[in-house]
């Protein structure tokens, strides 16, 4: 049994998820401190999304344990303190930007005043203020991504799970996303982010490299690069993967 520690935001021990005979996540041990920006890196199919889904309580682990803020992952008491941005846009495309934001605000038990205040701040951050009353279906993919991010930040979560938040987002906006994640980290929010863009990972305080569901390296981006004797993260990943294979 893992002891709930006030300083630890996310902890897993020997976490396994199998789909039939396929092992998506294989004996994953994580310990992420509060206020960290933790990047889960790996190619498609390495188990990043499955791990995030178990941490949000959307998938039941086959074995092992996962704790978020000292509670079992996905427990009802922890859900209001957690934010989740799925890989899909996951918005009601028949509703406006404002309707979507209000729905999630109400679901998270926010007052009307709080919803309006946060909505104003977030829409100005994602640069969509003038699209407030536009239907989601009329927005571009990048814009929809920004609304999706706003919906997951609305209730000011303590832990934020972002599954590939920068896919399909232009470089300029990607840079501003990372600035915002840094601002969240300074506010004490723990951000767990999955990405397969190795260059983005330099913005994380710590990273974990995943391959075939296993954690093959962990540490600050510099530590991981140095331990592999590589010039950059991409090279580090390839070297570490080769070492595993041989």
């Amino acid at each position, binding site marked *: 049994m893992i002891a709930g520690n006030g300083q630890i935001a996310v902890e897993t021990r020997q976490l396994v998820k199998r789909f039939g005979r396929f092992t998506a996540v294989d004996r994953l041990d994580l310990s992420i401190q509060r206020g960290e920006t933790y990047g889960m890196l790996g190619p498609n199919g390495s188990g990043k999304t499955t791990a995030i*889904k178990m941490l*949000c*309580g*959307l*998938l*039941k682990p086959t074995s092992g344990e996962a704790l978020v803020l000292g509670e079992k992952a*996905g427990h*009802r008491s922890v*859900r*209001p303190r*957690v934010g*989740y941005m*799925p*890989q*899909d*846009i*996951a*918005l*009601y*495309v*028949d*509703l*406006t930007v404002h*309707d979507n934001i*209000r*729905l*999630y605000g*109400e*679901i*998270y*038990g926010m007052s009307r005043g709080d919803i309006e205040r946060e909505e104003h701040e977030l829409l100005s951050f994602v640069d969509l203020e003038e699209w407030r009353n536009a*239907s989601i279906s009329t927005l571009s993919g990048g814009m929809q991504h920004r609304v999706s991010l706003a*919906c*997951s930040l609305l209730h000011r979560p303590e832990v934020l799970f972002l599954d590939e938040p920068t896919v399909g987002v232009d470089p300029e906006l990607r840079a501003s996303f990372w600035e915002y994640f840094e601002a969240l980290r300074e506010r004490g929010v723990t951000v767990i982010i999955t990405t397969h863009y190795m260059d983005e990972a330099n913005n994380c305080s710590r990273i974990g490299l995943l391959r075939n569901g296993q954690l093959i390296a962990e540490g600050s981006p510099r530590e991981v690069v140095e331990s592999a004797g590589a010039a950059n993260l991409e090279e580090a990943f390839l070297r570490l993967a080769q070492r595993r294979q041989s």
Partner: protein
Amino acid sequence: MNPRRAFAVTRRILTGLHHDRRTIALIVIAPILSMFIFGIAFSGSVSNVAVGVVNQDDGLVSLGIISNLDDDTLDIHYVDDVEAAVVEVEDGDSWAAIVFPPGFTASVMAKVNGDSNAGSTAITVRADKSNVNVAIEVIRAVTDAAMQTMTQQGRELPISVEDEPVYGEGADFMDFFVPGIMAFAVFLLTTLLTLLSFVGERTSGTLERLRASPIRESEIVVGYAIAFGVIGMLQASLLLVIATLVFDITIVGNPFLAYLIIALLAVVSVSLGILLSSAAKREAQAVQFIPLIILPTFLLAGIFWPIEAIPSWLRPLSYVIPPSYAVEGMRSVMLRGWGFGGIWIEVVALLGFALVFLFLSVKSLQRTSA
């Protein structure tokens, strides 16, 4: 249960509809179209209709007519007095009482011999015309039997058939048809809209986002049920207005009881839609459920012909499909004018279906996380 969260779901559905003209058109046009097409085009035949025969005569002519009654159409039993036979009809235990007056044979013979002062030679049919199809078939069967008896006797007999309805005085096919089609339209459309809407929630990832939030599965289901309950009642109102203004139908009973039945049926349909959605990964798969929903309802729910007239081996199926109870309940309220006391079995059955289906749909949502 947090009502605010459930209402947030309700509002998101209704607001979504506001932007979705195609669905609004489906909600408004489909039931009207169904009513026109089926009301004009449909004609069915019935069999095994329970009728009580009261023979106060026991003469040759009445016995001849009774023996000529078509026993495919009618399921005959004998009742001693008129009052008891009418009570059976009033209670819904039989569809009609066929009454031969005392001295019927003697009066017929007297009239044949030119005695204009002879007694009544009329066979009275006291039918439950809440199902017009059935009532017409009963009267036709009696008239045919009388004609056949005359042919056997080789002469014209002064026999008449009098129609004195127990329920549905002045009712025509549309009066009978409207309650059934209201239930059918609400059941079909609510199930389909929920099914498609929920498959959309699953495929777009919104359901997953909801499930990571503090909302409970029961709040999602109740939110849906309220939204579609409201939509169902609006459809019912629309149909009632059109049926009254265009088709001039008669509503004997309390319309609020009809709304209660429609609302319950909508809740049953919502939960059925959610349940079915767990078996469909994409919209295209969900559409395949349509015949599964339509056909049994169409054939077995008593919309066009009474459940009593369905072959007995198929009849148990009628009692396990929820619209059967809604159709029967609506007809009892609108045509027979029955109050809650007369339809409580249907209400309890629908409530039971609603509770079981709601429970199962909540469970199906919880199971998704496994």
